[in-house]
């Protein structure tokens, strides 16, 4: 069965999640807070209700950054 290939950061790693699904489902399966990330496919942001195909490569990009400066 095909899987969505997901790039995660901090630390950088890749995981595969089986089947087509909505972005919100993917984040739920990975237990990731949607407030803390963007999901990007081919350089474009995919909205929470956007569908990911089972052969997609996506990046879940964290948006939290910074020290206290």
């Amino acid at each position: 069965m095909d899987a969505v290939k997901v790039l995660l950061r901090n630390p950088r790693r890749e995981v595969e999640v089986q089947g087509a699904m909505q972005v919100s489902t993917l984040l739920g399966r990975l237990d990731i807070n949607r407030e803390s990330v963007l999901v990007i496919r081919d350089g474009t942001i995919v909205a929470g209700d956007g569908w990911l195909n089972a052969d997609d490569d996506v990046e879940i990009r964290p948006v939290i950054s910074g020290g206290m400066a």
Partner: protein
Amino acid sequence: MKCRVCREPAIIDIRRHNANFCADHFLKLCRDQTVKAIEQFDMIRSGERVLVAVSGGKDSLAIWDILLDLGYDADGLYLGLGIGDYSDASGDCARAFATARGATLLEVDLPADYGYDIPNGARAAKRVPCSACGLSKRHLFDKAAIDGGYDVVVTGHNLDDEAAVLFGNVLRWQTDYLGRQLPVLPARHGFPRKVKPLVRLGEREMAAYCVVRGIDYIVDECPMAAGNKHLGYKESLNAVEATSPGTKHDFYFGFLARASEHFRPEAEGEQADLQPCTSCGAPTTAEVCAFCRLVERAGGHHPDHGSPEPVPVELQPRKPTLVPTPGASA
């Protein structure tokens, strides 16, 4: 999910606004919220020279981009912190942006100009890295603005940054810090005016702004910041925000409207005790300022020259890779 404005497919939901936006109207929202903050807090006046504190991250490049689109006379200053590959990559992002926009980027390099870097300097001075970094940045951005004749220093602090700092200050009732936590710090006692035009925009929005605009920023977290309290506060606030959208906004802007002024006398009392540092002349409450003490403990030195030298940037006729902002002036 449809754009609230045009009903075209949306790319982002902003739950605290209970609204979704397409790419064009999202960029317009970011620009409009920046203008609103600048006007609401009288941050930048017409004709003023602006120095943007540029880290190579999403927030500083986004605010520089927005200010340039709004027609401000805005130069950037990048501070090389000597944090290995991270500094190399972040500097590359800052330079690439400046080149693409035909903007002026000034540079100060801590190891080359001051003889220390953040990892070793923090260790020698017995400070946590984020403390040594923040101290160095504040001093050198102030100095560059004063030396370069800039009217105002702009930083990329966003709503999440301010809410997290406020959260930390409240948890420990650091009343002196609470008195200084404002979107505008006026120029006085040898300090330039410092402003935060992104306080109405969240961290997720700024990352999205850069993706939509095609701005290449440093995505990986600073290795020195990993696991610090500030990041923990942000994660805690995001957990609350997930179930109660708008909490961060209400927390921060409620503080400004209803609580901030109660802490101001303490902060102003500290300002009254300022005197010139006997080493560098910068305003300080001690005989020698904290930055000069850090430089000394880190085994560093002050540079021979005064202001940072502009880094020659190859000018481009127009930004070749950036997506135009809707409604932006040419």
